[in-house]
């Protein structure tokens, strides 16, 4: 029996035992987030730290009489021990709901069907991986993280719902560093990811990164703060897009005054007709079911041609505001977003930019004025000054402070025809699932401040 099947069987036995403990009006949802991962951290193309992680995190949502409590534990893998722990938590849950006040926005658990999805992969053994990184990186100065292995998400509830999603995949999120003629540090960033490791594809990724690194060798172009015409690569656009998940397209956040796109939602402002944003689970990077086992539509239009179509709504928000939910997760953030592509050919990007900035990556974004959807952040990695369609020189990093209403609205000039699918590389607590599909953006006028 492979590890996926044994993990699912363990989960099923645990759930069956837990459901058998429930009394008449009690309900229970059990979620599993398990992974077997190899993490290799690199610095100077060598191994800084290697860590193998085997974890099975289990979440129990127990509810009764309009009260809900949640417990999370790390399972041992011994079904008898894990059932004993779960039993003690259910008993504790019973005590808590007896004394907690009623929560009017708790939704009854329902049977949202069954599904079982598995994406098999072919990942390198550690020996082969480290040999390839060392061999291919050669004399290059590489820093980064390899994460590879299996991930399992499963959700069952006492009403009969059962969803299972598993995947085997990897990413090597890396940077190459050099010094330019002035002795300044310069770097390029890349992501090689997928389900099938291929030495040739990895070598190609490194070769492309090295080619960009060569362009950073020359003297930096000094640029004063001010307004510039800018092309944002897909990786930079992904950073901008991440802010949409900080409440911007959440129905609950909008109602509570926490959405940066409040003025868009309420029709006071619009974004560009070129800009469309959807949740697209067909990317296959994350399950459609959320932590309550509710299943989101395969594709959900969030913003179409600059106008809000649907905000993300979880069942709690739906109950609070008397609307219909759309299977969003508790935080109502995007899980598998896609920005619609446009008609700007990749080969025409520099000529279309003319004179301005080519921004490869952004760093450390945050809101600076929520009402006006203003964000601040930094340029990072391989960013260039371009004149008359030709790259002139790398720049020194600049701070910006600009509104999403201008970037995706009044100043959005064109969107590239091709998009990139970027796997989520977050590894806080556990390796994240999900990712995004994003094109590049041409922006007429963008504000740099420092």
């Amino acid at each position, binding site marked *: 029996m492979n590890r996926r099947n044994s993990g699912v069987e363990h989960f099923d036995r645990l759930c069956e035992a837990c459901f058998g403990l429930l009394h008449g009006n009690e309900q229970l949802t059990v979620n599993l987030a398990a992974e077997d991962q190899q993490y290799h951290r690199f610095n100077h193309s060598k191994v800084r730290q290697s860590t193998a992680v085997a974890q099975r995190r289990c979440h129990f949502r127990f509810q009764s009489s309009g009260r809900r409590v949640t417990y999370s534990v790390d399972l041992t893998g011994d079904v008898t021990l894990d059932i004993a722990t779960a039993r003690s938590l259910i008993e504790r849950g019973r005590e808590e709901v007896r004394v907690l006040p009623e929560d009017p926005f708790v939704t009854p658990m329902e049977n949202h069907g069954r599904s079982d999805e598995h994406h098999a992969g072919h990942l390198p053994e550690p020996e082969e991986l480290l040999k390839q990184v060392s061999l291919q990186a050669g004399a290059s100065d590489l820093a980064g993280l390899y994460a590879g292995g299996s991930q399992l998400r499963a959700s069952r509830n006492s009403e009969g719902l059962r969803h299972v999603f598993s995947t085997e995949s990897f990413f090597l999120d*890396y940077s190459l560093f050099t010094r330019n003629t002035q002795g300044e540090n310069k770097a390029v960033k890349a992501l090689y990811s997928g389900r099938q490791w291929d030495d040739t594809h990895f070598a190609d990724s490194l070769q492309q990164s090295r080619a960009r690194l060569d362009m950073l060798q020359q003297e930096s172009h000094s640029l004063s703060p001010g307004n510039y015409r800018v092309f944002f690569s897909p990786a930079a656009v992904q950073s901008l897009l991440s802010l949409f998940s900080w409440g911007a397209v959440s129905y609950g956040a909008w109602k509570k005054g926490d959405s940066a796109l409040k003025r868009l939602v309420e029709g006071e402002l619009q974004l560009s007709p070129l800009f469309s944003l959807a949740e697209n689970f067909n990317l296959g990077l994350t399950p459609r079911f959320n932590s309550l086992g509710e299943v989101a539509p395969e594709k959900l239009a969030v913003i179409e041609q600059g106008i809000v179509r649907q905000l993300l709504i979880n069942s709690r928000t739906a109950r609070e505001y008397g609307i219909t939910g759309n299977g969003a997760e508790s935080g109502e953030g995007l899980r598998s977003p896609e920005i619609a592509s446009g008609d700007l050919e990749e080969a025409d990007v520099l000529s279309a930019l003319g004179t301005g900035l080519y921004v490869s990556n952004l760093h450390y974004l945050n809101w600076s*004025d929520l009402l006006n959807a*203003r964000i601040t952040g930094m340029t990072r990695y391989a960013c260039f000054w371009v004149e008359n369609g030709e790259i002139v020189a790398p720049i020194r990093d600049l*701070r910006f402070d600009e509104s999403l209403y201008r970037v995706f609205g009044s100043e959005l000039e064109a969107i590239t025809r091709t998009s990139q699918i970027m796997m989520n590389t977050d590894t806080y607590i556990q390796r994240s699932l999900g990712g995004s599909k994003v094109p590049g953006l041409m922006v007429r006028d963008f504000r740099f401040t420092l």
Partner: protein
Amino acid sequence: MPVSLAVHPQFNDFDPHLALNWIRQEADWVSIRFIEEDTHHRTVRNGRPEQNSVSIERGVMVEAMVDGYIAYAATSDLSKTGLLLAAQSAAHQARIAGSYRVFDSTLSQRPQALGCYTSTTLSWLDSVGLAEFTDRLIEASRRLRVTDSIVTARAEATLVASRMRYVSSNGSDVDQHAFLAGQHFAASAQDGIDTQHRSLNGPTARCVQGGLESFDWDWLYAECERVGSEALDLLKAENCPDETLDLILAPDQMLLQIHESIGHPLELDRILGDERNYAGWSFVKAEDFGHLQYGSPLMNVSFDPGRSTEFASYGFDDGGAPARREWLIKDGLLLRGLGGLESQSRLGLPGVANFRSASWNRAPIDRMANINLEAGKASLDEMIGSVRRGVYMEANRSWSIDDYRNKFQFGCEYARLIEDGRLTRVLKNPNYRGVTVPFWHSLAAVGNADTSGIFGTPYCGKGEPNQMIRVGHASPACLFRSVQVFGGGA
């Protein structure tokens, strides 16, 4: 007997010494770091319970040294089979990765450590009823909602009991128990399109080491009413002006200023380049220690893991180094970086005991812990009185800094204009920006102990794989001259 806040799930006992004996033959040297941490989140919004959750982390990290290289394997399977598999995995990785090592591991990086540490706490979860505590949070949210213009009133408590037991084949045995309490009380006021948020010291700042004694409810209720009123004041306020003027930062913003522009750039693993692909590098170079005048002579900064109520106090780091107070910056001069024994040996520089991990499933790296700006002599009135035109800002709400820790932009919840030595109008959307070293050179006055506050955050992110960790920052209010400030607007 009323239901208390304490949760006692059923687990099998774990004996780290027995486990060490199971695995000690698997490598030249092994250690086990056992973590058991309970985190309780209790949240009330607008008088109704919103979250009642308890998260229990329980697992081990096994370190194995083979041929002078250490690798790691983490598991929540605490059986003999689980420990052996983890130890064999760690040893196997050490053999493979050791051929491509950045540096050599030695036992001097894992000294024998013996000792224990326990937070000072007067009252913990068994002593308070769940119903009573929930009622307190409901009352706090009611006090925040001073009028119907407050659309969201949120009262949150986070209570953590953390145990770390570290044993190793060279005789280490460290047992540490930390009790931690976090509070968040916030009001959002809405008028038409505008929404303004105000909280008690910012979203995550109110976190201390200690127990439920930090919930002084009568004081908190009064503060909640102040917070609610100030949210309304912000709705009527004008935007912070866009100009260069003097800036006084309250301790609940100083925590962020210290964290981002002192703490992170001094981390030795950043200086070594380990973080270059994620959090970033540092403008500080190894040769700067002992030479770089980081800021004005009024600037004195310490690493202090022994301040009993501060959030990130402890007795030993995760490599067994005993934690001691050290000066990082004295009279503005940079003296010492933030790096554990591994980074110290790689750089040949002194550091501190800050080799820490976020949980059982992550390897330790250099982290901040408690970084404090020492109090000076000025009273708040004296600082305000010395300003002809300036801004006083409180409570962080936005933060961003570049990957070398130079160019920053921070925002606060609440500000007051200073005119001719007096606080005058309330200002909304206050932000400021600057560059780290020039900014710290503009430090013109450091507040006395009466102006000081002890804060922190549970959410310092860093590392690959990523780790979120607790840090503490104590600071007085400080005055900076000629800072670029600005407000909101399209």
